């Protein structure tokens, strides 16, 4: 597209000739089909779960006879599910708070380092992304066991979630701080603002969206996390663990409702996180 417009511009034709336009449209049909197929592949599974969670009957075949909320009633009356929801919420909250604080501090610290050291430290902190979660999971499990902390409980899973969330927090925050113009701060100081005033009126509002985005992202990582929780929490099941335990049983339509609740929670956090960070890049 860019190529065609640029060429048209150089010869001074102005708007594209109809022939070129038609050819371009034909060209992009394949691309559009690819995008649609990919979207179907990525989102159809989730759509199926959400759809069947509102099914009137227990059958899992199309077409569905009617809509109802009975599976949500059933699932939310289940004390095991309610307890797991509570634990997932706690884990997400603590991961967001601690992971967010650690990551934001580290991102600020990175800005002050000489560039050589900055690269090294940044690589260290990003390493968990490239570590198989399985390795971290059994590593953490045996570690706590060796330290004499047993039986395994929720805080151990949270410790792992923070580790997984940190790279994402750091990436988001570093990107935001790289865009931040420190000359603004210098200008404010030159004009007589105190250090604190410069921070609260300039740095804080400019960086706030990225901070919120990073915290929400950390919470999303925690809510969706399965493997570390599986190896470390023991009886303190989070929502993904309850789903895992119930998947193998006979088909239970309540699971669709449960999965939808988990899906809505993670997607909502991820959407909010992406939106807040994107809005900060637009500025």
């Amino acid at each position, binding site marked *: *597209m*860019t*190529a065609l417009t640029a060429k048209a511009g150089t010869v001074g034709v102005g708007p594209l000739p109809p022939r070129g336009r038609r050819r371009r449209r034909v060209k992009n049909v394949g*691309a559009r089909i*690819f*995008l649609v197929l*990919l*979207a179907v*592949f*990525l989102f*159809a*599974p*989730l759509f*199926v*779960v959400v759809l*069947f969670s509102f099914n009137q009957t227990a059958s*899992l*075949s*199309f077409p569905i006879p009617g809509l109802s909320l009975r599976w949500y009633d059933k699932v939310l009356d289940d004390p095991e599910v309610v307890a797991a929801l509570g634990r997932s919420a706690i884990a997400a909250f603590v991961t967001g708070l601690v992971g967010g604080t*650690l990551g934001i*501090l*580290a991102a600020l*610290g*990175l*800005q*002050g*380092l000489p560039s050589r050291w900055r690269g090294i430290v940044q690589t260290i*902190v990003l390493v968990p992304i490239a*570590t*198989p979660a*399985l*390795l*971290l999971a*059994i*590593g*953490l*499990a*045996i*570690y706590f066991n*060796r330290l004499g902390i047993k039986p395994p409980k929720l805080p151990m899973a949270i410790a792992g979630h*923070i580790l997984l969330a*940190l790279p994402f927090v750091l990436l988001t925050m570093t990107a935001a701080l790289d865009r931040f113009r420190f000359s603004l701060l210098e200008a404010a100081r030159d004009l007589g603002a105190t250090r604190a005033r410069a921070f609260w009126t300039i740095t804080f509002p400019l960086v706030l969206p990225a901070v919120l985005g990073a915290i929400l992202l950390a919470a*999303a990582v925690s809510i*969706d*996390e*399965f*493997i570390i929780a599986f*190896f470390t929490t023991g009886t303190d099941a989070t929502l993904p663990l309850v*789903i895992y335990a119930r*998947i*193998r049983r006979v*088909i239970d339509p309540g699971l*669709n409702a449960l*999965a*939808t609740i988990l*899906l809505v929670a*993670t*997607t909502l*956090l991820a959407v909010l996180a*992406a939106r807040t960070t994107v809005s900060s890049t637009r500025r």
Partner: protein
Amino acid sequence: MSIAQLAPTLVYFLVFYVGPLAVLLIISFLSFRDFQFVEPFTVDNYVSVARSETFRILFVRTVLLAFLSAFLAVVIAYPFAHLITFVFPRRSRTLYFLVLVSLFGGYLVRIYAWRTILGIEGVVNGTLLTLGWITDPIREILNSPFAVVVALVNFLIPLAVLPIYASMQNVSPGLIEAARDLGSSRLDITRRIMLPLVLPGVRVAFAFCFIAAAGDFAIPALLGGVGSSFIANQIQFQIGQTANWPLAAAMAMTLIALVVAITAALTWASRFLTR
């Protein structure tokens, strides 16, 4: 000042990342007797990992299926990243946003969904039965390597898109334009401009996907059936059923060594693509 700000995170890493992995490494060299890990240090665990026919089959299957899934994910993610960067640049924000969201949305929900879709009483079979196209449900869809690869690719695509998309932002359309004006062929442009700039992103994408797939546990456990379990499932079995942590640790270390070696070999080999 900056050291003080970095210190909490670095300490956290030391305690919760380096510590656990070091313990895992040490334990893999301990002996297992009467459900206790005891000295002396030995390489017996690694020897039994290497000698066992069962384990070897699991390692080969894990590496092959993870490799295939990572390859497919990259092959699908590359044109997607290309399209949203160069063909539909105005929609790129929206499309990228959708992919980003699906990266953080519903790992286990997706697995459950594939069971719902592919199972004996699942959507595909149920719908085909209702339509009268088949009389007996097809049993072979779920609990097969096919189901594992489908679910893995589905979960890996967003992970592959991110680094490839990021590296494509380095390619300025003007550069391609200039090369074309100077008479370069499409192949030349791909080989001499696109590949050198995008290849680092592709490498990272493949490495991410391969590592994530090779260590996956829930997908083979819930979609794979007996014939397609991964080494991770055997590790979980050793921990859960026999509490043989040293052997499990040795398997995990062997897996990471294999994955790192294969990724390094590929990275080295891919250098020749741009020569």
